[in-house]
């Protein structure tokens, strides 16, 4: 491959290892076996909302339900990351007995501003109608998750932290539960002295709430050939939490610089407290320049006059990264329920890009799933009831309204912006039909010959290794690599991986291509564009506190 040739990441990406992800129930390999009524994979907002609603329903009709939630992080919230500005609607439905002031929000949104940035200049834009945030709250998703966890445990839900679900247990075509990952393996995958074997958790219903780019959800959809009109597409968000010397009194979103014009994305700056500011840059993973590095762009972004004064003398207290499913309505799997299984939250793709909202959809989907699961366990009603409820709900209506908005931007920022404006004005009626979208990995990339772009490697701000340190990542160095790399990784592709990964997992150096798997913060960008991600032993990865 000659330099500066276009390459397609999909060509170098191994396929989903389906045969390793789907295991017949009863197969050898597990230590303990536990039986529950419902197992929920992922203690994020969707998973916990499902557990809470289900526990409440069971309590109301005095059924005893054994509900277990598996979480791969060592403690609740440690793998949760979002902006975030939250619509309280779903929490109100989950806790009708509580008021907004009881919820773990930080502050109501009072002032907000949207800017178009160029290098050195900011232009105030009128807030697009899809982005109004009055009545919503600035919050930390970590704090929301910990709060939900307490509520769930009060209701008798069992939460098992440090237990990643690595495989789906199946009986014929039905999902029977999950098998967790082993722990205590050495670099070569052999069990060390304190090793723990995988556990089988068998349940009547398995709810997959794995968050963005869920592995088991992908496996199930592929295995059961569940289609979606468009493939799911993703953006990568890199975020920092700052303790600032100057206060911030408004929620800010920006478009434009430092993103190149053929990339989709923008930034957010949210004050959790006047002097505790969450800021981040979100970039669609269909970017064309193979040298684009979201972490580096974030470091540049912080030097814009809009932020430089705010951040001066301040301190980064946390750093993190996560992908966001951006495909919207047309990328949702056509069925989110199957035999013994339901898909919740980000894992199903319930995120509205134009308003940057997904948390309340996640919680709402958990509530709906709980109702369907309850009826399924009680009266053997089909789990497809979950799909029925969803399809008639505001979740579907709202996602439908903005179904083409993100997709318009694949043609570039300016043309996309015009189309988006037209969509808003016409309430989604323009354009009719739908945009076709490619998988991110199928979009061709090349390295820009722009020397300036390449020298952006030598950036200001924090280095990736320091960033990983700030994510709280203390994964043991001797852990076996959890990433499945393709057999052939030419130089340009390796360099592309190195830029793509915000945590510096991939490095190209004197000794060639190197994979620093312990650096991984589970953002899943690699699973979208490069080497496939699989879960590692529980407790690995970041330890977010207020992200």
């Amino acid at each position, binding site marked *: 491959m000659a330099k500066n040739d276009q390459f397609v990441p999909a060509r170098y990406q191994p396929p989903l290892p389906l045969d390793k992800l789907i295991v017949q129930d009863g197969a050898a390999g597990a*230590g*303990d076996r*536990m039986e529950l009524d419902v197992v929920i994979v992922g203690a994020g907002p969707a998973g916990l909302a499902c557990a809470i609603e289900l526990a409440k329903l069971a309590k109301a009709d005095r059924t005893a339900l054994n509900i277990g939630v598996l979480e791969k992080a060592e*403690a609740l919230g440690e793998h949760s990351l979002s902006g975030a500005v939250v619509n309280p609607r779903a929490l109100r439905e989950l806790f009708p007995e509580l008021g907004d002031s009881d919820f773990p929000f930080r502050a109501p949104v009072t002032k907000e501003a949207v800017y178009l940035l160029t290098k050195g200049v900011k232009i105030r834009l009128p807030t697009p109608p899809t982005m109004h945030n009055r009545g919503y709250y600035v919050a930390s998703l970590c704090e929301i998750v910990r709060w939900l966890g307490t509520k769930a445990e009060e209701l008798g839900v*069992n939460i*098992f932290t*440090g*237990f990643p679900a690595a495989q789906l247990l199946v009986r014929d075509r039905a999902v029977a539960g999950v098998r*967790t990952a082993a*722990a*205590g393996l050495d670099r070569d995958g052999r069990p060390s*002295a*304190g090793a*723990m074997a995988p*556990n089988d*958790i068998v349940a009547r219903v398995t709810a997959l709430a794995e968050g963005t780019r869920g592995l088991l959800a992908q496996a199930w959809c592929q295995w059961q050939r569940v289609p979606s009109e468009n493939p799911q597409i993703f953006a990568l968000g890199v975020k920092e939490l700052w303790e600032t010397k100057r206060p911030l009194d408004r929620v800010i979103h920006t478009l434009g610089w430092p993103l190149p014009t053929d990339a989709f994305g923008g930034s957010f700056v949210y004050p959790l407290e006047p002097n505790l500011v969450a800021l981040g840059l979100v970039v669609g993973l269909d970017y064309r320049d193979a040298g684009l590095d979201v972490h580096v762009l974030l470091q540049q972004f912080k030097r814009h006059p809009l932020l430089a004064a705010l951040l001066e003398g301040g301190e980064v*207290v946390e750093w993190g990264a996560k992908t966001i499913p951006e495909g919207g309505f047309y990328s949702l799997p056509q069925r989110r329920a199957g035999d013994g299984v339901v898909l919740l939250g980000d894992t199903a793709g319930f995120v509205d890009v134009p308003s940057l909202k997904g948390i309340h959809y996640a919680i709402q989907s958990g509530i709906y799933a709980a109702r369907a699961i309850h009826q399924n366990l009680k009266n053997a009603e089909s789990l497809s009831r979950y799909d029925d409820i969803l399809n008639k709900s505001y979740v579907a209506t709202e996602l439908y309204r903005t179904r083409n908005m993100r997709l318009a931007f694949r043609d570039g920022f300016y043309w996309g912006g015009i189309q988006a404006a037209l969509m808003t004005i016409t309430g989604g009626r323009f354009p009719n039909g739908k945009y076709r979208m490619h998988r991110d990995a199928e979009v061709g990339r090349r390295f820009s010959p722009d020397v300036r772009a390449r020298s952006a490697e030598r950036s200001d701000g924090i280095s990736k290794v320091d960033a990983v340190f700030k994510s*709280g990542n*203390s994964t043991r160095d001797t852990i076996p690599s959890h990433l499945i790399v393709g057999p052939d990784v030419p130089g340009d592709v390796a360099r592309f991986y190195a830029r793509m990964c915000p945590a510096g997992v991939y490095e190209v150096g004197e000794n060639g291509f190197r994979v620093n798997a312990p650096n991984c913060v589970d953002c899943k960008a690699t699973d979208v564009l490069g080497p496939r991600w699989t879960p590692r032993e*529980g407790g690995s990865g970041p*330890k977010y*506190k*207020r992200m």
Partner: protein
Amino acid sequence: MKIAVCIKRVPDSETRVKIAAHGKALDESGVKFVMNPYDEFAVEEALRRKEKAGTGAGEVTVICLGPAAAQETIRTALAMGADRGVLLQADKIPADPFEVARMIAAELKSTSWDLILFGRMAIDDYNHQVGALTAELLGLPCVTAISHLEIEGTQGLAEREIEGGIEVVEFPLPAVLTADKGLNEPRYPALKGIMAAKKKPLEVRPVQASAGAFEVVALSPPPERKEGKIVGEGVGAVGELVRLLREEAKVL
């Protein structure tokens, strides 16, 4: 075999230390609390001794002095395999370790234990003494900071690290031991263990902690790290380097 393990709930070692407004304690908002890592070795050792004693022949009781939230810490020990827990509930742990030892000794006194285990020190206050103080109050022999343990009937043999060597110590049971890293590899709590822990007895007993003889005046951040400097060039700079490391940096 009746074994007691005394544990403490402490801030995670990666905690970014922020000082509370009143300047005397840690700002606990957002702080993750865990079982003191040295106590994990103590719990693990207790479980191994119980297992060695044979089915039904051993019992491990976990005791913790701490706030209500410390129940979670005790549950972790129960999930690992301990049989019962006692929380001596006090919102504030006295700054005076002798007071802490006094309360723990009072709890331990009523039972005749074969073995009492502590972690060698807590990673928050680094006091390194509660185990030994408690042993004295109970009139029991004590060996601190053990990294190896053998028990034969009522005779014990332990190894402990000292500067440049390993002390081999003999002692009779019952005894109080404080555990150091290297004693064992603590087990992961199994899923079943986590479930079972919820049903194991956990007694919560409010206690009155008296202030003791130590009074916290202030908690403050460490002095700012000074700018680095090049000490000199070549072999000739070594003497000065060593002097600075000794007198200025105080690491030699």
